[in-house]
């Protein structure tokens, strides 16, 4: 017991040193827990890797080079991260309104299929790009918004909890699009000329311009999603609508008393959340795939939950968290090739990050991060949003 305490004190001292650098030099107070969670996960992951008989430093070095080892790697990592920004925003925005939207997975599919359908309409090829591209993005955004808005409406009209209804809607759209894309009789949205199940290719005019021909392709959708993060940050922090969202999220009773239309805010927040996922899906369809395949967005919505929580639902921090998430996935194959460590190890590390972020008491204890230091109250004024 005592020995363990001493060892722990040693780790603790090192940890508080790190803590000091982060607080005093970098001013990252609100994100401590997340940073430490990442650190801790990599340490535990390293232990795992050495248990399977590989030098963790070799493995991590390969992973790092896979992530940012060269221009192509960096571009590939960024490209991989872009849609995560949207799926994370989908959770984060609803979260501010006190809603737990775990339906990004379905909202991505709804947005993706709508974008693919609109993009492949025959008259799209007659339109100039500066019309066709916004059109396909708006279509996807709308698809996501509707699919996100439904649980909001159900919540206000029937009291159905959004966690349950988003799960149901996830299944509904998942099987729905699978059928639409697979079915040959009747043909719904399947491209009959293709051997694999997918929709018709979208018109060339609706393809987002490419930035780097990396793997996957890095396209202009990056700017759209990064831009949206700043817009959302501004909306939450500076607008009356953002104030309403935050107020409803923190105290719906007081919101009602103060004259805020709580139901309207709930529906609007859910729809906006879905819209972010829909936009991410549309930009992928338009910029990367060129058609819709069921399975394209597999797990992307659920990863979004982890990313949003890692970023503490801060829209700007989401950009960084999504980049980390996407590049880890993008770098993992090189680690598998060179160090013979399965890609799944990266998935395990990511799962641990989420675990440590959610169970932040562990991190606070290890790194001596006191929540109750001076003021026992967390400032969650909307001014504290960014």
């Amino acid at each position: 017991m005592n020995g363990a305490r001493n060892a722990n004190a040693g780790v603790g001292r090192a940890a508080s040193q790190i803590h000091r650098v982060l607080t005093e030099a970098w001013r990252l107070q609100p994100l401590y827990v997340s940073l430490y969670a990442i650190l801790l996960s990599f340490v535990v992951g390293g232990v795992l890797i050495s248990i399977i008989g590989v030098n963790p430093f070799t493995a991590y070095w390969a992973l790092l080079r896979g992530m940012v080892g060269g221009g192509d790697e960096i571009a590939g990592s960024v490209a991989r991260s872009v849609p995560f920004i949207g799926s994370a925003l989908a959770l984060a925005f609803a979260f501010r309104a006190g809603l737990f939207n775990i339906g990004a997975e379905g909202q991505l599919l709804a947005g993706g299929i709508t974008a693919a359908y609109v993009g492949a309409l025959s008259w799209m090829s007659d339109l100039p790009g500066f019309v066709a591209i916004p059109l396909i993005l708006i279509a996807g955004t709308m698809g996501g918004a509707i699919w996100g808005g439904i649980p909001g409406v159900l919540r206000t009209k029937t009291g159905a909890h959004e966690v349950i209804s988003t799960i149901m809607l996830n299944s509904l759209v998942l099987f729905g699009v699978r059928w639409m894309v697979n079915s040959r009789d009747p043909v719904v949205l399947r491209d009959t000329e293709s051997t694999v199940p997918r929709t018709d290719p979208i018109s060339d005019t609706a393809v987002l311009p490419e930035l780097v021909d990396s793997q996957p392709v890095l396209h202009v959708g990056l700017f759209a999603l990064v831009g949206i993060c700043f817009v959302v940050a501004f909306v939450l922090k500076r607008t009356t609508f953002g104030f309403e969202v935050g107020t409803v999220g923190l105290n719906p009773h007081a919101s009602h008393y103060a004259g805020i239309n709580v139901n309207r805010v709930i529906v609007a927040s859910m729809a906006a959340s879905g819209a972010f996922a829909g936009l991410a899906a549309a930009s992928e369809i338009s910029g990367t795939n060129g058609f819709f395949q069921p399975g394209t967005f597999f797990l992307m919505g659920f990863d979004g939950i982890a990313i949003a929580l890692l970023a503490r639902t801060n829209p700007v921090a989401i950009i960084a968290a999504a980049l980390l998430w996407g590049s880890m996935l993008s770098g993992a194959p090189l680690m598998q090739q060179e160090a013979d460590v399965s890609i799944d190890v990266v998935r395990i590390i990511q799962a641990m990050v989420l675990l440590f972020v959610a169970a932040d008491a562990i991190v606070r204890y290890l790194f001596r991060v006191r929540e109750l230091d001076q003021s026992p109250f967390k400032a969650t004024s909307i001014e504290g949003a960014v």
Partner: protein
Amino acid sequence: MAQASGGAARPVLEVEGITKAFPGVVANDDVSLTLNQGEIHCLLGENGAGKSTLVNMVFGLYRPDQGTIKVRGEEVHFEDSGDAIARGIGMVHQHFQLIPVFTVAENIILGNEVTKGAFLDLDSARRQIDSLAERYGLAVDPDATVGDLSVGEQQRVELVKALFRDADILILDEPTAVLTPGEVDDFFGVVESLTGQGKSIIFITHKLREVLAVADRITVLRAGQVVGTATAEGATQQSLANLMVGRDVVFRVDKAEADPGAPVLRTQDLRVADDRGVETVTGFDVEVRAGEIFGIAGVEGNGQRELVEAICGMRPTAGGRVEMLGQETTDWSPRKINELGVAHVPENRSKHGVVAQYTIADNLVLNRYHHRKFSQRGVRNTAAINAEAQELVEQFDVRTPGVDAVIDTLSGGNQQKVIVARELTGDLKALVVAQPTRGLDVGSIEFIHRKIIELRDRGVAVLLVSAELDEILSLSDRIGVLYRGRLAGTVNAADATREELGLLMATGSSGGQR
């Protein structure tokens, strides 16, 4: 009560030279206090004087910056409240800490579970609770769900909970602020039986009458410092009030004769159901005219909450109608009613009145953040919001380091001042106030009463709901007694007596006729 019976008083708790600072405020500045065995020690002070902070340190919730705490002569350093409980200290907080969906027994054993193998031993817990209840006259039903209990009952649960953990030093932070007069009497009965059996009590209250009735000794704090100690014998309400506030306090509100104008607020046969669907307002008729204060007296639970919420649009009506300024406003939204010029000070401060995590400034614009002054094209004008907040904070004497402080860091009384400041400003036609001075110190009560009268004199129609008969009597021009959801009688304040009102409140009729 237990005057140093025979031998020398034995101190069970000694606080010596305690200092505690929060960002921007020194909440306690070199405070010392001694609590003797079997004594009731009252802690008095204005809102924000540092009373809760002091007792929170004794209970291990905050750590002092300086100074020592001794329990039964032994110096202690509490890491958390668990350490304090282990030393026999129990606390009933200003805001209760019970879990509404649990039963009384479950709440009481929470954190101190009696187990039999892997299972909760609720039976033996129940027996212990019953025996405690009997010993101290604390009637609680172990199987009732806490959410269904009245405030007074919840308070008894909190007390039993502390006693269940063998506390013999009890800290009671404003226990009577939310009790009805009857419950207060019961409560003092309990307190006496506790000290009679050797428990020692620190008792915080703003009600000077209570202090004089129960205290053995009194310590007065002002701005974090001890400004005086007294015994109940030597003190009067006036002397205590002056000591607390540091100036002469006027208890009696001076007001001119009312000059009522046209009717502003009218209800006809109003019926409203509570959360369980039971109709608690059962045909309520009232007419409040411009420039008068209509006070509604009554034992709590006779429909006050539902009545106020229905008038202000927060709760759907079940029948009848509400009219304001000549328009029918039945079931209008709170926003629409508010924009007519109707303000509402809600009864439940933390549930409706504030967003605890917001700053003072954001709370001050909670219902008008969207006005052109504070928002242009949907974008908030932070400068204007802060300027307004700064002005209101000064005008209403909210004690805070700044308008960007999170409201939850304010003392309870100062939070109420923020709400009052928000509601009492603007172009008002009518004002609905429920329990406006609950938990406020005498100085602040005086101030808020003056503000309400000022509004009346400017022609605002005021509907005042209060459980404090004194407040009703000193503010109102006309008084109605709410009994089982309807007005049992209306009297002119000038002719009203406590006795007559008390009878109406208790029986719904003023005697004479059966």
